[in-house]
Each structure stands twice: as C-alpha cells, then as structure tokens.
C-alpha cells in the first residue's frame, strides 16, 4: 500500500473531503469528561492534546504534553452503538375487526464515516460481522448500517494501562482493511499523519488532499511510534499467552476462581455494555392504552441479568457465579466454537468500566493459578 504524508494542520481537509462525499463523520470528542464518539464537523472538534488515564475501575482525562489528535486509547463506548443499535423498533402491529396486521419497521441506514477506528475495534467489528452478517438469519439493521460505513483507521502509538491487544493479536498496528489508515507522528517540531488506503473510495478521498509520498524516514518514524505502544503493553502486567484460553476455561468450569469473583462482581452488566463484541439483545412488546396498536422493540441485553436465562422453573443461571462464568467463558472459549475466533479483542473496556475493578486478565491468571496440576 502506497503511503502518503498529510500535515497535521491539513487534517480538517480530510474531514471536509469525507463530509463532501456525503458521509456524516463520527469520531472522538470530549463529552462528559471522557473521550467518547460523537459527531465531528471539523478538526477542532477532536480531543487535540488530551489523553485518557485508565486503570481498573478508573478513567480520567489528562492533558498531553503535545498536540496529538489521537493520543488516547479505548473510549467508554465502542462503535457498536452505531451498528447494533442499543434500542430500535422492529415492528408495529394493529388489531382491528379485520384481524392483526404487522408492519416491519425498516431501519434507514445513514452514510456514516468512523474517524479514528483502532485496530482492536476493526477486529471487534469483524467479530460482530460473523455474528450478524455471516449467519443463516441476518440482523438486517446491522447488515445495512455496516454496508454504509466508511472507516478511517488510526494506528495506536500509545496504550492505556488496561490495553492488552498484543496478547489477543488484534493490534496495536492496523491489520484489517479500512478505507483509510493513518499513523500520527509527532517528532522534532514535525506533526503529520502517514496515510494509506485499502479501497477505491478511500483513494478518491486521498486524491483530494495536499499529500506528498512518504519518505523512508517517515515510514520509519511511524513504525517506531507503533512499536512504542507494543513495548508499553509487553512490559505491562496485562501481557499474557492467550493461545490456550479455550482449553483452560473449558477445563476449569468448576474453578474456585468463579466463587471468588462472584464475591466482588455486582452483576451490573457494565462490562457487557462497554464490550465492543457483546451482542446479546432482548425484545420489549407493548400496546397503547386501548390495546389496538402494539410495538416490538429490540434492545441490548446482558447475560448478567436474572431475566436473561429465565425459564418457567426460574433462572437457569441463578447467581453471579454462573453469570460471570457464562460471560467470560463465552467471550474467551465458546466463542471459538460458535464463530471461529475469540470474542475478546483486548481493548480493556471491561476492566476500566467495572465499578469494582474486576480485571479479565487477572481472572485468567487466577484460574491458571488455582488449576490443580
């Protein structure tokens, strides 16, 4: 892939070119004291010079000592919110003397560009694609939304303490196709983006920008920046061997580690909401007061709720132990049997947003530690 250099002060031209092509641009913005995703109309909307400090149950915005646009890690909410809608109407029904009529509510998919998609997030979208698109029955709303997405990927040049993508082999370097892929380089008074494209429409955007071909030095600087993130994670406490996770968890469904974690877990479902791959949903049916009009809505659901496994004899998973075990075992083990890959991309959101600071990577080592030889 040919690489080009786009000066940082020209980033707005990229945003405007994508907008002019008919896309609404969504990207990182500062909201509620966090770097969240939202509408981006100009480069000034981006969190320039800000980063996030993340740890177990901890998230704070911090000033960077440079003007990086993409110098932060995983946002509280993932791109999932735009592809698998948190709540959407599925059908509308009417009952009259003529009987029942049901009308499907078709979700209009907007043309949207995701600006600043990290490698772990591209992997998360690919994982959800296998659930919703490569299936016998598809989720049409997801399929339509997904088909319209223009992606601008950004390589990570710094990692949060909660990141462990190197262990899950999903980053920090972008390895899946995107329309445009960029690396932000800040060095010796220079601030630029190294940009490449995997698609025709990406190249059409690139053509409109004041870019110049990258030099060997530019490429080297970009690689060095990504390597810094790799090093950060490999030196950190959350670096581990994930190659045997499925076997490890299947062998340890009765581990005392589940009892330990159940003592702390609140069954609050935050991890499943923040997770970019968790896909479970439920439906809500209702009528108007006269009982003539009915609606069905689909919304995100979580395996941590009691209702989730409800049967006439009670919940199949009646306690936190069985619910946490279901979540973690699904994510790291049965996902392989169901969809051919892990359900975890190592983004660390479940660690940061757990109100009691439960750490998935610590749970993995605890299960390993308690396994009888």
């Amino acid at each position, binding site marked *: 892939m040919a690489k080009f250099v786009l000066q940082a002060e020209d980033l707005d031209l990229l945003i405007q070119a994508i907008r002019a092509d008919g896309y609404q641009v969504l990207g990182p913005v500062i909201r509620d004291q966090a770097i969240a995703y939202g509408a981006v109309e100009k480069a000034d909307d981006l969190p320039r010079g800000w980063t996030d400090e993340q740890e177990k149950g901890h998230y704070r915005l911090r000033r960077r000592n440079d003007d990086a646009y993409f110098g932060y890690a995983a946002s509280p909410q993932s791109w999932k919110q735009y592809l698998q809608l948190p709540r959407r109407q599925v059908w509308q029904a009417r*009952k009259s003397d003529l*009987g029942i009529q*049901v009308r499907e509510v078709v979700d209009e998919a907007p043309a949207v560009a995701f600006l600043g998609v990290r490698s772990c997030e591209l992997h998360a979208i690919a994982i959800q694609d296998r659930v919703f698109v490569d299936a016998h029955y598809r989720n049409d709303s997801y399929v339509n939304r997904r088909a319209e997405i223009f992606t601008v990927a950004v390589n990570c040049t710094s990692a949060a303490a909660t990141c462990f993508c190197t262990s899950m082999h999903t980053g920090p370097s972008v390895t899946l196709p995107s329309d445009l892929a960029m690396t932000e380089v800040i060095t010796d008074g220079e601030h630029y983006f190294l940009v490449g494209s995997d698609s025709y429409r990406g190249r059409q955007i690139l053509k409109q920008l004041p870019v110049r071909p990258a030099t060997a030095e530019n490429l080297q600087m970009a690689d060095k920046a990504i390597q810094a993130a790799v090093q950060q994670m490999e030196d950190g406490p959350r670096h581990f061997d994930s190659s045997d996770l499925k076997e490890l968890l299947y062998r340890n469904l009765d581990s005392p580690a589940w009892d330990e974690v159940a003592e702390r877990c609140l069954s609050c479902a935050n991890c499943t909401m923040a997770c970019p791959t968790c896909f479970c*949903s439920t439906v809500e049916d209702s009528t108007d007061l006269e009982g003539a009009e009915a609606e069905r809505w689909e919304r995100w659901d979580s395996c941590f709720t009691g209702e989730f496994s409800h*049967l006439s004899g009670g919940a199949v998973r009646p306690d936190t132990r*069985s619910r946490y075990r279901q979540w973690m075992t699904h994510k790291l083990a049965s996902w392989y049997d169901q969809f051919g890959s892990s359900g975890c991309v190592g983004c660390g959101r479940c660690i940061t947003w757990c109100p009691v600071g439960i750490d998935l990577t610590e749970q993995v080592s605890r299960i390993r530690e308690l396994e009888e030889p």
Partner: protein
Amino acid sequence: MIPAIYRIDRRLIEHPGAFTLHLSATGALPLQPFEPGQFNMLYAFGAGEVAISLSGRQRETEGQIAHTIYTRGAVTAALGRLREGDQLGVRGPFGQGWPLGEAEGKELLVIAGGLGLAPLRPVIYHLLGQARASLIPRFQLFYGARRPGEMLYVPELQAWSRQMDVTLSVDHADSAWSDHVGVITKPLSAAEFDAENCVAFLCGPELMMRFSIQVLLERGVSPESIYISMERNMKCGTGLCGHCQWGPNFVCKDGPVFRYADVRHWLGIRSL
C-alpha cells in the same frame, strides 16, 4: 423477521392450564413445512412471543399447524385467553428436529415427561401414518406425568396403544389409575428392547431426561443413539439474541434436539 398471522380454528383443553391450538394461515404465504421437533415463536398481540414446539401432524393441509401450550407466564396466559376465530402471530419453524432417518430399521423408544410429549407427537404421527410403521421393527412410548389428569392427548394415547407399546406412569395416582406409579425410569429399566439396535428420543424436564439416560446407558444403549430436546430461554429463534446459549450451543439453532453423545459434557454442568 415479522410474524405471519394465523387464525385459531380449534382450541382443545388438554387439562387445566394446558391447551392445544389448531391454527391455519390467514395470509397468502404460510410458513415453511416443519420437521418434527422444531418450534415456532408464537406472538400474542402486544404481550410478546414464546417458543412453542409444533405438536400437530406434519402433512395437514398446507398452512395448518398445531401447538400445545402450558400456561406459565404472561405470554402463555395471553395465548390462553384467545378463542376460536382469534388471531396470533407465528414465526418459524426454527431449529433442528428429531433425526427420523436414524430410527429407520431400528427399534424406537420415545420417552416423554409432562408437556414433553408435545414435540414428540409429530414423530408418533409420522411413524404410525401410512406404511412407515414397517420401517420400525418396534416402537415404544414411555410417558410419565405428575397425575392422571395432567396427561396430554389422552384419547390418542388409547388409540396409539393398539399400534405400538405404550407405557404410562404417574407420580401421584388416583383410584381409577391402573398403570404404573412412580418415575418413568422404573418401567423403562424393566422394558424389553434391543439395546444395541435402538434409538431413543427424549423430551421432558431435565432431571427426568438425565435419569432416563442413565437407565438407557446402563441397559447398553450407545450415547450416539440417544437424542434429547432441550429447553432454554428463547427470544429470537434465529441465533442472534444470545439468550439460549448452553455451553457452545445455541439451543434455538443447534437444537432443540441434540444427540446426547455431543452434549453429555454440558448436560452434567450445573447452572450453565
């Protein structure tokens, strides 16, 4: 996926709380024909959907289906309030049914508990119908219920007993009861069958299936020849909502009928 609208042609009370609805399609496009063991999602207007197995004949006039329902929650209660001529929504058929081909040339043991007879009735219809009985050298039904008054399809059980071996058992008998009393495993363990050349289809409470499987294994039936129908919470029926996961399986699309040899590991784990 939106439901097709069906009309209730006939409503039969099986016993207090349990009823069978015979439905026919109102639209031009009825659902696809079903395989015995599959289920539909039934929609009671405004109240919601519930997964109910198909309990009728496979080859009735096109667009006609039957469901046997036990009132347990809000949706089944709403379905229970419907009367002949009323309408409801149907999506399906979903899931993997009973492997009828596996049973050909072998003895078939159908083992059911309570409402578990419903998804097995199409199997009985299928095998007793036409000349198919000759494909199965021996066909036995073991059916257990809590009380004589809680058995499904009572008039049919009598008719079937003239064409196949029917063994009935209840937990609590009354003075008119002359069949077995106690769990179904007792008559099952004493029954005559060729363990090396038989196939067993089981549907009922999980505990009843576990104990029945134990008896079958002790009698020498291979785990490959035992099939069970599992129940889990189902919201979508299409493998997308995640509710019915059971280990690596989605009960709605990989089941509800599973070969015991494939799932015995998961069946042994509590609160999975």
